[in-house]
């Protein structure tokens, strides 16, 4: 059995163009944390959630041949996203065959009830969107001044009043309004860009 380093190398070589490699990288970095969160909330242990993510990536990378073999294969990115979404929904709708052990996750109980595919699809789409927002936020945070970011974070995510935020950061009220709106506008632009790329 080849090592995963080798598996990945061969995946890279089989993809017809560099943009596909990029798509794979983006797919794994986006989908990895997402699948991990879903699995953990569903009650899987940390190491098993880890295994699940890896196994799914390995299985998907090995099925790339099928995508390559299609004449009308469409975009690699779209294909990856579609099977990943199906996968997650299947995972969420499958009844758990064991009751949650004592001391397990409270968060998992919310999902334990999830069985309808519609609800599962919503959960996935929402988590997907959450991941997009996180990534976009990370990107914006790195590109703006520290105070600008904090003004946005305190006044909108942590729902601290604008006046209070201004006081805490030693900024004027007007500049907090500008900082949070400016950051928000940028965040949305990046999320939109991500969405367009994925769809």
């Amino acid at each position, binding site marked *: 059995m080849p090592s995963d380093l080798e598996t990945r190398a061969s995946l890279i070589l089989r993809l017809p163009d560099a943009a596909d490699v990029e798509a794979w990288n983006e797919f794994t970095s986006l989908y990895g944390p997402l699948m991990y969160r879903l699995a953990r909330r569903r009650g899987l*242990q940390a190491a098993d959630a880890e295994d699940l993510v890896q196994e799914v990536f390995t299985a998907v990378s090995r099925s790339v041949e*099928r995508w390559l073999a299609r004449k009308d294969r469409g975009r690699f990115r779209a294909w990856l996203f579609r099977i990943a979404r199906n996968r997650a929904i299947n995972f969420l709708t499958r009844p758990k065959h064991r009751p949650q052990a004592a001391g397990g996750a409270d968060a998992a109980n919310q999902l334990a009830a999830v069985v309808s595919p519609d609800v599962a699809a919503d959960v996935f789409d929402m988590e997907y969107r959450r991941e997009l927002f996180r990534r976009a936020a990370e990107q914006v945070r790195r590109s703006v001044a520290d105070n600008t970011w904090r003004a946005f974070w305190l006044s909108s995510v942590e729902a601290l009043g604008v006046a209070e935020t201004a006081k805490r950061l030693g900024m004027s009220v007007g500049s907090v309004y500008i900082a949070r709106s400016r950051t928000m506008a940028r965040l949305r632009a990046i999320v939109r860009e991500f969405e367009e790329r994925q769809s």
Partner: protein
Amino acid sequence: MSHQLEPCEDRRLRLLLTAAEDSTEYKTAATHVESCLNCQTRLGALAADVQEWSEARELLTTNGDDLQIEQELRDRPRRLSEDDRTSDDDRSAAFNSAVVRQLLSPPSHPEMLGRLGRYEIERLIGAGGMGVVFKGFDTELNRPVAIKALAPHLAGSGAARQRFAREARAAAAIVHEHVVAIHDVESEQDPPFLVMQYVAGHSLQARIDRDGPLSICEILRIARQTASALAAAHEQGLVHRDVKPANILLEHQVDRALLTDFGLARASDDASLTRSGHLPGTPHYMSPEQARGEAVDPRSDLFSLGSVLYAMCAGRPPFRAESSLGVLRRITDSEPRPLREINPQVPTWLCRLVEKLHAKHPGDRFQSASQVAELLQCCLAHVQHPESHALPESLLESGDRDHAAKARTRVTSFAVIASTLVLTGLGALAVFLPRWHSSPADDHNAGPSPRTVQSESSTSGASVVETPAPPAADVSTQWDDEVDAALDRVEESIQQLDGESRQLFDVSSRNSIEP
């Protein structure tokens, strides 16, 4: 809508969202917003509507139950960014002191970092995707040791533990003066760890980074010792799969090279690579068959040994490109730049030896590591005592002309052929050129082909991607279902694993989320 003295136009407010902060328009609008309550509110509405603001808040807020999951995601040591050139250094940064403390029991001696079984841990000497390496001290046998511990996030995974133990035991079976000895494998411990011979020195990689190309004697010595280590491994049926300068340790004082990380590369990749989707280590020393994901045999290690030899001669690996994809393409498709163009000190017979190790087809390489070790031994004897030791016959086969002369001859003859072809007409070109292009393997003894030189000088390695011919397999319309079925099987096995881990709940409860 505005009754302010200043015009509260949306157009001006939008500048605040997008314009450069040092522009005059921005500053004017900013001053206005400072005192205009309407515009303060309006600005927020222009950035996003009410639902969007609340969506952002909701999605970016981590609720209490998820805090631990987010922490775990941050602790995953190999959350690599888009860049797949991430170095080992970046990864080791992920092993912060908290993680290290988590691995160790408190020390019994104040100058030590902690304890692991009967071993006192002195300090951290390295970290990778799989875990950390400590310098330690064996209190029973009174000797320094190197201890490799499986990372905490892997220690909980049955699969990773098993693989760790299996590979470590296989490696422990190789007893050889040029293989780092494995003293002990503690796979039932938490974390599992293995105890190795402590080598005081540095890696060949560090040496090349520091000094550039090595002397011919050193190159031959290190290569011979590495080849003999590989021969010992191959005899045990073990292919190393990760022969590279970072895995060859050079002992201080003594002229001794030791090969390490036998098969362990696999255990670590297992856990780290597919998760992030990025190459965990360097692909620079892979063989073409490895890169393509084909079956490998001992001759794959010989290709890598060729790359190590090349790196010692040139001061850099043979196949380089901007991206992993570029590197892999080079490995499978092109010949490296001739060594003597980089380092004219390298004798032509050594170039020939490296070229033979670098044959794309395993069948065209030397056939065993012991054969290579013997050959290198003879070469070393020749360099040290040229008058009494002749070079091995096999390295003399195409005479002793040097590369430059050969290259000139080739260029000349190509020019002659080309002009002949032009005279013969375009039809002839169409017939001959493709054949000439498609036979790079015929030419491994004859130095670089013009095609290689051309691609080596191209700077856009990553974008030079040929579309492979589509596989002959029939086009299945059920592809999605088949993939899903395959993934279903994967999930079933994971669920089973999950079930088993729950049965051992007492043992594994420490991994569960605490409210």
